[in-house]
C-alpha cells in the first residue's frame, strides 16, 4: 500500500482538544461536519485546504489527551492518508490503527520533512520517501497490518465473528 500526498507539519504534543474540540464531541456526529472542525484550534486553514492523501506530520506524543476517536476519524474523513510522528499517545495510536489510518513512527523522517512537501509512504516496504531522501521505519505490528488491511477494527471484528 502506497500513500502519497502533501505534508501538513506540526510540533510536539499535538493534543486531541486542538484536533477535535471537546465541545463538539456530543453535538457533531455527521462525518462531513466532523471533518470541517478538524484541527480547528491548531490550524484554521487545514479543514479548508486539506486534500485526499495528504499526510500529517507531528513531533513527539502526537494525539495526547482524550480518548475521543473523532480526533482520528475527523482527519480520516478529511482525507488524511497517514500520520508520521516521532511518537504517538497510546490511545491515539490504537484509534488510528482501529480506523485503518496508518500511524508511522519515524523521528528521522519527521526531522527531515518540511511543511508542504510531497511525501510518499510505502507501508509494506516500511519506507518514507521525501525530498531530503528515503527513511525506513519498523513495520507496523502484525495485528495493526491485519486491521488496516481489513479496513479497521469493526470490519476486522465482523470478519472474526464470521459476519463477512
Amino acid at each position: 500500500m502506497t500513500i502519497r500526498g502533501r505534508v501538513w507539519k506540526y510540533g510536539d504534543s499535538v493534543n486531541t482538544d486542538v484536533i477535535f474540540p471537546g465541545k463538539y464531541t456530543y453535538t457533531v456526529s455527521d462525518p462531513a461536519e466532523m471533518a470541517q472542525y478538524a484541527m480547528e484550534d491548531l490550524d484554521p486553514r487545514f479543514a479548508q485546504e486539506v486534500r485526499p492523501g495528504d499526510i500529517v506530520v507531528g513531533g513527539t506524543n502526537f494525539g495526547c489527551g482524550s480518548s475521543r476517536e473523532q480526533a482520528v476519524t475527523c482527519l480520516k474523513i478529511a482525507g488524511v492518508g497517514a500520520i508520521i510522528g516521532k511518537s504517538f499517545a497510546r490511545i491515539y495510536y490504537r484509534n488510528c490503527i482501529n480506523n485503518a489510518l496508518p500511524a508511522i513512527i519515524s523521528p528521522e523522517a519527521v526531522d527531515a520533512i518540511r511543511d508542504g512537501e510531497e511525501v510518499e509512504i510505502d507501508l509494506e516496504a516500511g519506507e518514507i520517501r521525501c525530498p531530503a531522501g528515503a527513511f525506513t521505519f519498523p513495520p507496523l505490528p502484525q495485528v495493526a497490518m491485519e486491521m488496516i488491511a481489513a479496513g479497521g477494527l469493526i470490519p476486522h471484528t465482523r470478519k472474526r465473528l464470521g459476519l463477512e
Partner: protein
Amino acid sequence: MSTTFAEKVLASKAGLEQVVPGQIVEISPDTALSHDNAAPIYGIFRKIGVPRFAKPEIVAIVLDHATPAPTTKHAENHRIIREMVKEQGIQHFYDAGEGICHQVLVEKGLSLPGEVVLGSDSHSLHAGVMGAFGAGIGRSEMATVWATGALWLRVPQSMRITVSGRLPEGVTSKDLALRVIGDMGADGALYMSVEWHGEAIEALDLSSRATLPNLMAEMGAKNSYLPPDDKVFDYLDTGGRAQRSYTPLYPDPGAHYAVEVTYDASTIEPMVARPHTVDNVAPLSEVAGTHVDQAFIGTCTNGRLEDLAAAAGVLRGRKVAMGTRLIVIPASREVYLQAMAAGYLQVFVEAGGMVLSPGCGPCMGNHMGAPAVGEVAISTANRNFRGRMGTKESEVYLASPLVVAASAVAGEIVHPHELVDS
C-alpha cells in the same frame, strides 16, 4: 520470574504463565466503562452486526459528561443510552446525577484489586487507586468489547515511582503529581504502566491517592497502579461495596522496571500547571499574583470529600473576590451528600460560590461555566489544553483544591498560607 504488576495481571487475565513487555495478549476486562459516549459507541456496535452484548454483566455506563443535558442534542444522546441499557439488560447503569464515572466505579465496587477495567475515557487509569489495571480505549474498541467481550492489549513496560517521607502541610498529592509530570513531560511514561510505591503514598487517604493514577494519563501512561492495602480493603468492605470477590495482585521484588525514580515527599512544594499543557509546570510562587476570573473545584481528579473539606477549610468565613467566580461540583452524589452533611456546601454558598450537580461540569467545555474570551480560569481538573474549557482564547491553570480555593478568595493565584484577610 519476578514480574511487575502489569505483567502479572495481564498474564493472569490472558491465562498465560507469564508475559513480557511488547507481547500482545487478548483479554476479557472485568469492567468495561463508558459514559455519554455510549450512544455513539452503540452506533458502531450495530455496524458490527451482532444483536446482543457478549457480556452485559461487565458493562458499566455512567452519564457524567453533560449532565443534566444542556441541549436537546445532549438529551437525545442520553435517551439513546437509556433505551440501549433496557434493550441489552445492563445492570450497572448510573444515570445523570450519580457522579463522574471513575469515582462512581470506585464507590460502586466495580474497580477492584487485581481486576482489569477498560474504559472509553482517557482517565480510566483512575481505577489503579484500588489496585486495578485501568486503561483507556477508543470507541471502536469499546464496541468490539461489547460485541465479543474481549480486546487486544500490548503488555506495557513499567515505571516505578517511589516516594519517601511525608508531604508537608499545605502540599497535596496534586502537587506531587504535577511535579512528576513537569519533571518527566507529557510523554514521560508513554505506553507505560506507572507504579507508585513508598511511605508517602501509603500515608495518603484514598481520595488523595486517586489523584495520582488519574493524572498519569497526562504523562502518556497506559495504566497506573497503587498497591492495595487495608485502606482499600476497609473501604470496599464497608457497606459491602465490592460487587464480587477479588484477589489483590502485587509486583514481585526484583521485577524489571524500564524506569525507576525516587522522590522525597518533604521536598515537594505547591505546584501549578500553566496554560496550555499539563507538563508546563511551575512552583506556585512563580505564577502567584496572576488574576483569575473563574475558579473551579471538582472533577474526577479533585472533586472528592477530602478535596471539598480542604477547600471549605480555606473558604470558611471568607468571600470570593469581586471579579472572580467560584464553581464547586462534587464528584458524585455520595460526595455531595457527605459534603452537605459536613456543612461544606453551606460554606461554599456563603462565600459566594456556585454549587452544581455531580458530573464533569465545565472541565471539557460542555456546560456549567465556560470562560469568556480573554479570561483566566484556575481549576482542580487534569487538563488545560488550549480550548479545553470552551474557547481557545482563554487560559486554564491547574492546581490543588487548596490553591484554587485560596485563589478564588484573593482573585489571583495564591497559596492559602499567603492569604491575607482584609
